């Protein structure tokens, strides 16, 4: 009897709280008998208890709450009105429910408590009034008046006595052994522990320098206690993943039924715990994956039998801890994903070129399903394939510092594997130095570190037509200098090269840094709103010496340097016309006359101005305007792109576009809109001055090649030193 099921315990805690509320509500109801709100609240409480007790097979509890619910439903719907008798029977019902709960708490079962009296009472009230509300009232009265006082009273006494007998002080009741805590309080505690961890890091470092034995000893103890406290507080926020999974059997059943598939759902590792905020964050992605597995993963029973498999498909959810992360897998034993089909689709959609997919391993090809604009569903079904695809899943998972990958064997099934951090607030990270500044790289993205001395670096780092690569165990690893990405001057001049091999979006790349400092647990601090938009940093942290270090957003970094097919793609005229830029960006949509619209990346647009034609002056054969103490070259897009402007006014609509500290004035006819969406444009319809086109609300919008446009007005606009900046701005 000590082995009360965990579910039952939760049920008891919850019900006890609910009952206290119920008592107050019932009394309040007597004062305002017509309050629908109160009645609704009482009804819901009883309904919840009824539902759960039915589920847990507490028959008596269910029968009592069932009649109670009926009575309440009538009251709530206005078919009956409150009277002292109804209040009495309702209170009697609540008392009986409470008695039953305490019996369950003690013995795990309902015991031999007799509930028929209360059920009869409520039924009487129900039936006595139902047919003829007003005249029937006196008839019901005697029953109602005598019964509630007489009947339940002995029951209560009996139970109370029993409780006193059996309840020794050694056992706390369920309601007392756990408390509900405000999540905000937990968050505050978590934040304070974060502070403590930082202070600890500082003290441990100082103690190490001080060489004072006593000090070192105390700091070690502090270290230990702080670690334990951190774990303890983290645990308070931990919840078993079952809280999330518990709704999946239903989801799978319903979905299976509507798709005409038979599905069994296995859940392994239900008790695996993770931070509640993360639990919330993985809810939608996980639901999506489970739906996908049933809808697209599993074949129809006929197809399965034809393939020699059981007609009933299996979806397995598995969760476990691995290396400070939680791994959640969603597997099905369905048809699997054919890498060749994915590759063909990717080429068809223009996501990758034929040449690109030919070089990719089958495993890499599979990861393409996470690329925006890719959907494998041949037909749009009711359940999935409505635009919210795997790319959204990936975005969500990466948003919480996790990763996702897919494995599949044709004919055997598919597994999606999520790796998510245990908690968001404190993450293990590698601190590195670049140009004298320190940065933190979350360990989750870090695969390994490679150190090359000057001799080896000069031969091992090769130049692939301008793109630097390193042969890492035979495979070419693209290299990116952090100093170049950030537009700072590296202070490493001895030729020694340090490479942090990072993984993001299922791709690897090497980030070249100046120095590796240490690995430590860092506390993630959010950045102010001005800096979030940069998309380069996922946050900041405070290092052991109290200085602030930025946390690199490896996913964003990768997207910026990898998806554009190498950093220096726009450097020359040999621009790969079939490449596709896929970026989450905001675009300014402007009309340029003749019904044509162009999109300009908003990230580099500094201002929109309405000026008069008279401000335009000339330097040689070029048009310029004076603007905020500078001279801006003027690009008239209608002339540049050869569209006919029918507008005849001397007002100029100017988009001030800035790269670094230089600006240009782009003249358009009108500003139409700002769009904020995952835009994906194909370059294969490139025309003069246009990178490609995209659809915005069913209209074709040409994506302006801003660089070329500005160069047409000022060939020196991008000087050599600004080059990288410019590219970054453009790809942002």
């Amino acid at each position, binding site marked *: 009897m000590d082995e009360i099921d965990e579910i039952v315990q939760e049920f008891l805690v919850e019900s006890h709280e609910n009952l206290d509320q119920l008592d107050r509500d019932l009394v309040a109801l007597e004062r305002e008998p017509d309050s629908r709100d109160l009645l609704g609240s009482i009804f819901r409480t009883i309904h919840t208890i009824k539902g759960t007790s039915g589920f847990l097979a507490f028959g008596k509890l269910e029968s009592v709450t069932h009649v109670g619910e009926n009575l309440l439903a009538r009251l709530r719907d206005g078919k009956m009105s409150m009277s002292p008798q109804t209040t009495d029977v309702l209170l009697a019902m609540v008392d009986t429910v409470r008695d039953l709960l305490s019996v369950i708490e003690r013995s795990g079962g309902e015991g031999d408590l007799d509930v028929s009296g209360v059920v009869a009472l409520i039924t009487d009230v129900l039936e006595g009034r139902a047919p003829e509300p007003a005249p029937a009232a006196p008839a019901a009265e005697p029953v109602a008046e005598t019964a509630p006082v007489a009947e339940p009273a002995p029951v209560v006494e009996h139970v109370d006595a029993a409780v006193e007998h059996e309840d020794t002080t050694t056992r706390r009741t369920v309601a007392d052994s756990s408390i509900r805590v405000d999540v905000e309080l937990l968050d505050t505690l978590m934040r304070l522990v*974060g502070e403590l961890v930082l202070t600890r890091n500082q003290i441990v470092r100082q103690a190490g320098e001080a060489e004072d034995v006593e000090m070192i000893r105390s700091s070690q103890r502090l270290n230990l206690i702080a670690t334990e406290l951190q774990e303890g507080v983290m645990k308070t926020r931990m919840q078993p993943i079952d809280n999330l999974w518990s709704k999946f059997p239903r989801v799978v059943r319903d979905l299976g039924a509507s798709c005409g598939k038979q599905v069994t759902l296995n859940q392994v590792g239900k008790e695996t715990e993770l931070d509640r905020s993360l639990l919330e964050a993985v809810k939608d992605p996980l639901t999506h994956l489970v739906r996908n597995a049933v809808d697209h993963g599993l074949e129809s029973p006929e197809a399965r039998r034809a393939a020699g498999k059981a007609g009933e498909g299996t979806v397995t959810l598995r969760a476990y801890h691995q290396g400070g992360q939680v791994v959640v897998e969603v597997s099905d034993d369905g048809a699997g994903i054919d890498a060749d089909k994915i590759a063909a689709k990717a080429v068809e959609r223009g996501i990758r070129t034929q040449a690109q997919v030919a070089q990719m391993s089958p495993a890499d090809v599979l990861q393409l399903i996470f690329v925006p604009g890719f959907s494998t569903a041949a037909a749009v079904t009711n359940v999935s394939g409505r635009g919210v695809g795997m790319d959204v899943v990936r975005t969500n998972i990466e948003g919480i510092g996790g990763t996702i990958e897919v494995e599949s064997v044709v004919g055997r099934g598919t597994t999606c594997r999520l790796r998510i951090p245990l908690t968001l607030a404190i993450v293990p990270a590698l601190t590195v130095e670049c140009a004298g500044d320190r940065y933190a790289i979350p360990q989750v993205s870090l695969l390994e570190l490679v150190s090359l001395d000057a001799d080896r670096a000069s031969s091992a780092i090769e130049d692939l037509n301008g793109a630097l690569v390193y042969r890492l165990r035979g495979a070419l690893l693209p290299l990116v200098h952090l100093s170049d990405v950030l*537009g700072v001057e590296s202070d490493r001049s001895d030729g020694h090269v340090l490479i942090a091999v990072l993984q993001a979006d299922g791709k690897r790349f090497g980030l070249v840094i100046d120095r590796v400092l240490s690995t430590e647990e860092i506390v993630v601090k959010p*950045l102010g709103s*001005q*800096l979030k*938009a940069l998309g380069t940093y996922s946050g*900041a*942290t405070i290092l052991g010496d109290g200085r*602030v270090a930025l946390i690199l957003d490896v996913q964003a970094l990768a997207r910026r340097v990898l998806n554009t097919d190498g950093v220096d793609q726009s450097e020359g005229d040999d621009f790969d016309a079939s490449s596709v830029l896929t970026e989450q960006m905001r675009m300014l949509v402007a009309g340029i006359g003749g019904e044509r619209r162009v999109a300009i990346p908003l990230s580099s647009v500094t201002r929109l101005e309405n000026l008069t034609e008279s401000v335009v002056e000339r330097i040689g054969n070029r048009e310029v305007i004076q603007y*905020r103490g500078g001279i801006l070259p003027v690009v008239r897009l209608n002339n540049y792109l050869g569209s006919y402007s029918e507008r005849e006014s001397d007002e100029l609509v100017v988009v001030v576009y800035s790269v670094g500290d230089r600006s240009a004035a782009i003249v358009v006819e009108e500003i139409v809109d700002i769009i904020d969406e995952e835009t994906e444009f194909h370059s294969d319809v490139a025309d003069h001055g246009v990178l490609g086109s995209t659809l915005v609300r069913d209209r074709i919008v040409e994506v302006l090649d801003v660089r070329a446009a500005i160069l047409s007005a000022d060939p020196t606009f991008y000087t050599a030193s600004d080059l990288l900046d410019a590219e970054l701005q453009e790809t942002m």
Partner: protein
Amino acid sequence: MSTRLVTFTLDGRLYGVDVNAVQEVLRGQPQTRIPLAPDSVSGLINLRGQVLSAIELRAQLGLSDREDEHEPMLVVVRVGGEPIALLVDSIGAVIDVEDEQFEQPPDTLAGPSRDLLIGAYKLDDRLLLALDVDRAVAA
């Protein structure tokens, strides 16, 4: 009606922000520079475990850069619940000003400061320029 302003100087001019917006005033703190950030955000500072963006008001107001040897002071303001540090040259007194002393900025005021200044309070010997904190911190 009178208003209480925390005053500070930038490039020899006197500016003020509403005292209610100000959380505290600090001497210069070590800053972490932020590559790629707009000029107006000069860095990040650690204020008792909180990471704050430091806004270079000189850049926001279109003034010349501060000389390197001159250590800036920090005025920590709360904007929308988020603390942000404003870099200024020096801190002045807390001054009570009357509504009668206030005047809108002149029509001739141009440039970035036009958006950032609410107006001027005419003190006996000089003008006190009232800063719109919300706009001043917007990047």
